[in-house]
């Protein structure tokens, strides 16, 4: 049998530049400015809708704050983005092409999404330096872990991050001995050292002193542009300081979105969240 393919297929597969740009599998494509899409995502736990048709988009380089009352679905949203929880329906894309709902947690990390947990999670028995060394970008397979040595450039990189997170003098200390706020920073440092495109920060300034929280705000603002950030926070003063777009979640979907001043005067937001 001699089947001839339609003529158009040839030019289609060769990639005509007038049709757009080549799409490379596994490579982040932010050509449409958006780095993260959530479309009509629903997650149900025993009949309770933790996320209800949630749609949200974050631009590349944007700093976005997410606020909302307890149980609004903030942490569940982080869970579905990072692969910890699978959505019942809806799609989640990283850039234009990477489908996060089909990837495991480590794969999502390697693709370029870093996550800080609500409770600071560092390796308490390891030194501050070792925590960062393990988080370094690069080969993560068992085979590599036998002869991997942390030298030269990598040490410089760790020292650089240690300075950014104000922990250089504590490099040799066991991280379990750090204060709550310092652990938060160390965890943020472990994310930064991987140079992720998108950072998800779940209550990053909880337990920090006013001064530490001030320094964190400066750090996040300096990161925006190079990285995209999504900050879940309860501390309104801190959110105001970041002066970014704010999304209010309520009962698993977006209630309002806009600048902090607009949000403050939004009648529904006052009713369900700010007013209380």
């Amino acid at each position, binding site marked *: 049998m001699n089947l001839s393919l339609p003529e158009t297929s040839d030019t289609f597969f060769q990639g005509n530049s007038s049709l757009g740009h080549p799409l490379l599998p596994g490579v982040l494509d932010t050509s449409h400015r958006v780095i993260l899409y959530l479309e009509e995502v629903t997650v149900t736990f025993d009949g309770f809708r933790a996320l209800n048709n949630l749609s949200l988009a974050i631009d590349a380089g944007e700093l976005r704050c997410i606020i909302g009352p307890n149980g609004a679905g903030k942490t569940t949203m982080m869970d579905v983005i990072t692969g910890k929880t699978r959505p019942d329906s809806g799609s989640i894309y990283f850039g234009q092409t990477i489908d996060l709902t089909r990837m495991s947690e480590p794969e999502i990390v390697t693709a370029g999404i870093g996550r800080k947990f609500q409770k600071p999670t560092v390796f308490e028995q390891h030194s501050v330096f070792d925590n960062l060394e393990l988080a370094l970008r690069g080969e*993560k397979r068992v085979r590599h*872990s036998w002869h991997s040595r942390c030298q030269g450039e990598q*040490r410089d990189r760790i020292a650089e991050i240690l300075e950014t997170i104000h922990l250089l003098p504590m490099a040799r200390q066991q991280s379990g001995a750090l204060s709550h706020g310092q652990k938060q920073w160390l965890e943020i440092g472990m994310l930064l050292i991987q140079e992720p495109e998108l950072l998800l920060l779940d209550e990053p300034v909880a337990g920090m002193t006013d001064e530490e929280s001030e320094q964190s705000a400066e750090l996040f603002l300096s990161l925006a542009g190079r990285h995209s950030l999504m900050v879940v926070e309860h501390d309104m003063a801190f959110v105001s300081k970041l002066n970014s777009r704010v999304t209010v979640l309520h009962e698993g979907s977006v209630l309002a979105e806009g600048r902090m001043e607009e949000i403050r005067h939004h009648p529904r937001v006052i009713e369900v969240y700010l007013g209380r």
Partner: protein
Amino acid sequence: MDSHSSALPPEKQPLLSPLAWKGVGLYAILCLLVVPLLHLLLDAHSPWHISAYFINLGGKILCYAIVAVALDLIWGYAGILSLGHGLFFALGGYAFGMYLMRSIGRDGVYHADLPDFMVFLNWKELPWYWTGSDHFFLSVLLVLLIPGLLAFVFGYFAFRSRIKGVYFSIITQALTYAFMLLFFRNETGFGGNNGFTDFKRLLGMSITTPEMRVTLFVLSALTLLAALLLCRWMITRKFGRILTAIRDAESRVMFIGYQPLWYKLTAWTLSALLAAIAGALYVPQVGIINPSEMSPANSIEIAIWVAVGGRASLIGPVLGAITVNLAKSWFTVSFPEYWLFFLGLLFVTVTLWLPGGLISLLSRLRKGES
């Protein structure tokens, strides 16, 4: 960049501290020279003579110490408590026991080509899975292959399903129990509840000579040393740091891009292999292997040695295995009915007042001195 280097830790971590190297030297002199020579050269009436009983007991305890080190690798460093390590130990023992059974030849009670228990069951030929047990090297291969494969497959499915903590421990306990029931059956083809015994030779040489006794003792001592150095090497590598990181915060490990499955599986399988080697060395020294080695209580006892000695220290579990087993061989002779009470009491005492085990007592003393 050099301005930072004072604040950063040194680049290399030594395999062992100078003190530990001295310990290794002392251990080598004692176990590889002094003990063997005192047994072989001195007359039995000499006060310095070490009797066959003590060589055997020593060799047995060295094998237990290897299992303790194996369990420490997976429990102490990766936080995975196996209550089924007795199974890998026993499987290693059985695999080598098959070779020892075949080496009896026609010197058994029935003077037949088949092992006695098969004659007793009226079997006419060797089951297919006994093929290869005539050859020493194939048998040594089986010692590694069977427990290694079982551990790999079991571990793969358990870790992939993210079974952790108590659930994992209970499943390992059930696994060893299931195997014990299987091996109790005569039809399984491993001698039923009597297991294997009455060994005569190893590599054509009589198994009861002092030279053979000392050889097995020295081999056990060398294997223990090798196991310790191997585990120590592993934990001083990045591999070890990731393993302890998994123990302390597994979700964080995943969220910095590692697949914990393969790290756990590597440590788990290696640990099972070490236990199997210990079992293979144990069987010719005690002269018997039967399904009771797979009883859940045996595996729990291994965990007690590690807890008593001190987890995540490698040398602690060796200390624990020696202390508990010396106490056991004294107790079971002097007050057999109180042994289990004593063991329970020891475990409770250590858990409540000495969570770091005996080894933490030593480091506390050293701190007190300086």
